[in-house]
């Protein structure tokens, strides 16, 4: 039994939705159709029974009519002696004889049947009389046919009375039957309506169950989809029982959920891997820089350098090479300044002195090609400035401005005070800087100083940044260049309010 149910269930699940719908619809239609057919069949049989009920009356009416036609025929013949009336009489007689044969002849205790017997016997007697009458008329026996005619007419009246009485009785009897039939019809109506109602309710219920079967998986799917939209992947997979269209969608949906989960995991892993790699790269770079720094630092051991230079200066003095001694002392001062002032502020005087040193060194290298002119106000010498700001500018002016020029390179340094600002100007007559480059420099986009060139490593960008930070002012420096080969002027304007005497 269970197996049958299971196999039926399995069969049901393998049907497509279309087939299911059509099947259920046809089933409900069939049920309602059957109920209707049943109702109609019953009503039909009832009606035919009702028809039968009154057939007896109909037959009696026919009988009465046939009898009347005999009487009329005979009367007609007697009055006219026409041959058609005779024919009419004979045919009526024949018809009546046929109808008579249907009547009952047995003696029973049913009043109705007995009356039929009486009518039959009386009719036969009547027909005898009518025949005699017609014969008499043909034989021209006037007295006889007149007498017979009266007798026949009397008999006719009696038979008619009998037929009418029988008709009434049948009618009463039939009416009782008719009443019973009507009541039965009423019951039939009620029961049929009830059955139809139950059938309809059942059908609606069936359709409801079916559509529920179809829609509930869809609802589950929708709910699951909503859960996934919220990011909750912990939902249970949708249970798939049926193998129809909805089942296919559910299966696909489940597959999708699993795939999405797997895909998200993969992305997570990828991101993590990427992050790890980026972190590694950064560490690498920092290590690299670290190494570079250490390498550089290793190269410049300041005390060693300083001591070495001093020794060299002394040697030069002992050998009475004054220029060499001066040169080496300048170098020592230069480097001493670099080392000493790396974390301190300096005065303007010290800065300018550094510039002097630098120029002297360069002039030795390049055989006096660089001319340096100073115009300074003496009372500004004690102004505090960040260290290492002038020298890099001068360095830039020399390296980029007047290095490759064919004419005499001149660097002018001016320091003057004007309207609460102290101006430090370094001007060269070199190749100039394009406006675009000036803007680049001001924006801080210039490339980090290339340590391979002839520089001490501190670039213009660094100077500008430190100036901006120190004076907390954006407008601390300006670079002017009129154009190609027109020279460049770098002006630093620092507010004189913030200057302080050297502490």
């Amino acid at each position, binding site marked *: 039994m269970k197996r049958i*149910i299971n196999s039926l269930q399995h069969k049901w699940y393998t049907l497509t939705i279309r087939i299911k719908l059509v099947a259920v619809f046809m089933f409900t239609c069939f*049920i309602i159709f059957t*109920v209707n057919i*049943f109702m109609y069949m*019953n009503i039909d049989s009832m009606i035919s*029974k009702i028809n*039968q*009920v009154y057939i007896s009356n109909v037959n009696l009416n026919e009988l009465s009519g046939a009898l009347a036609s005999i009487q009329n025929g005979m009367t007609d013949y007697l009055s006219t002696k026409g041959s058609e009336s005779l024919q009419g009489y004979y045919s009526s007689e024949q018809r009546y004889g046929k109808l008579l044969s249907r009547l009952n002849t*047995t*003696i*029973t*205790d*049913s*009043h109705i*049947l*007995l009356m039929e*017997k*009486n009518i039959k*016997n*009386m009719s036969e*007697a*009547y027909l005898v009389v009518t025949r005699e009458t017609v014969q008499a008329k043909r034989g021209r026996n006037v007295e006889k046919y007149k007498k017979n005619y009266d007798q026949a007419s*009397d*008999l006719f009246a*009696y038979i008619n*009375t*009998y037929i*009418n*009485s029988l008709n*009434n*009785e049948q009618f009463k009897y039939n009416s009782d*039957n008719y009443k*019973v*039939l009507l009541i*039965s019809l009423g*019951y*039939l109506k009620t*029961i049929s309506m*009830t*059955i139809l109602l*139950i*059938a309809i*309710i*059942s059908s609606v*219920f*069936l359709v409801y*169950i079916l559509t*529920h079967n179809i829609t509930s998986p869809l609802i589950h799917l929708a709910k699951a989809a909503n859960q996934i939209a919220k990011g909750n992947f912990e939902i249970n997979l949708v249970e798939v029982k049926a193998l129809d269209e909805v089942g296919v969608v559910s299966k696909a949906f489940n597959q999708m959920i699993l795939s999405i989960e797997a895909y998200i995991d993969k992305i997570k892993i990828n991101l993590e891997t990427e992050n790890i790699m980026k972190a590694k790269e950064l560490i690498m770079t920092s290590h690299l820089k670290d190494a570079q720094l250490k390498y550089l630092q290793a190269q410049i051991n300041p005390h060693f350098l300083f001591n070495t230079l001093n020794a060299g200066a002394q040697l030069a003095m002992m050998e009475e090479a004054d220029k060499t001694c001066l040169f080496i002392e300048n170098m020592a001062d230069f480097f001493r300044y670099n080392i000493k002032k790396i974390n301190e502020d300096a005065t303007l005087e010290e800065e300018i002195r550094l510039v002097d040193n630098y120029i002297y060194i360069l002039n030795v290298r390049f055989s006096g090609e660089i001319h340096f002119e100073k115009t300074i106000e003496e009372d500004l010498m004690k102004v505090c400035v960040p260290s290492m700001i002038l020298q890099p500018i001068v360095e830039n002016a020399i390296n980029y401005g007047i290095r490759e020029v064919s004419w005499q390179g001149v660097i002018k340094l001016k320091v003057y005070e004007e309207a609460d600002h102290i101006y430090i100007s370094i001007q060269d007559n070199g190749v100039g800087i394009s406006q675009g480059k000036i803007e680049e420099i001001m924006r801080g986009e210039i490339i980090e100083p290339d340590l391979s060139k002839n520089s001490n490593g501190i670039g213009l960008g660094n100077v500008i940044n430190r100036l901006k930070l120190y004076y907390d002012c954006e407008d601390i420096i300006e670079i002017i260049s009129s154009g190609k080969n027109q020279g460049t002027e770098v002006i630093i304007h620092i507010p004189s309010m913030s200057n302080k005497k050297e502490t």
Partner: protein
Amino acid sequence: MDMKIFNKHKKLVLLVICYSIIIIITTFSIFYFRERLLSAGIANTIDYQQYDKHYAIITSNMDLPFWESVYEEAKIEAKKHNAYVEYIGKDLSTTYDTQVLLRIAIDCAVDGIIIESNESLEVTKLINEAVEKGIAVITVLKDSPKSTRQCFVGINNYNLGKTYGQQVLKIWDKHTKRILVLMDASKQNTNQNIIYSSIREAILQDAAKSKQLDIQTVAINNNNTFSSEEAIRDIIMDTDNLPDIIICLNSIDTRCAYQAVVDHNKVGKIDILGYYNSQDILSAVQKEIIHSTISIDAKQMGALCVQALDEYKATGHVSDYLPVDTQLITLKNVNNYLKKEN
């Protein structure tokens, strides 16, 4: 396990139940209807009993309870002899008189006729015609002596008259003068004549009492439907010539007489000698409105008729006269009859 299955497929089970209900109701209603239709007897499947012989009974005044009890008893007796008695003319839409009914009965080719005859010529002729056609004819209560009827079943009219006469003598007191006998106006009623002459004879036997008595007849024209009532009323209204005793020879006259006497407050002044033992006549006897009445054993009459017919059919012979018992009912024994009726 079953409960689990039920819970799981609750809806399905409900559905199956619904459809089962439909099927059950449908089948049930089919059978119910078959049964109802059959029981209503639509089809003419009622079994009627069949008989060999068909007898007809023809009377006047078919609605009288007297004739009804005669007929019922005749039917019962006939059933024993495998015959059926039909009351010709009853339940017809037209009322026919005896002559027509006899004509009809002859044409119906019945096997035997029981007829309350009259002495008219037409009836006599018809009876003869019936006998000629082989139909046995028995006259009942009223005879047609000139016809070739096989037998007469009736009461002894002579004795009847004698009983009436004796009752008159019993009632007689010195104030009794007029005695009225109500009779049928139709000329040829031999029975009545016998009764009347018998009454006279009985009364005149007591010469002493009968000296002062004046015995008369009143003819009531029975052809008019309500003639009895009218005639009797006239008699009672005629205060100068009120009778002291009224003798009625049929049940209708008896009833009219006692009703009229009651209506006109003549109870005690007019004595009624009546006929038949219906309930109201019996209770009138009990109330002493009617002095006494003669009853005919209707059942015996009915049975005798059928027996006579049958005997004739079987053997070809039957006695010419079969008497039916009569009973005088007075105040003394009226209770017995009342009990019997109940």
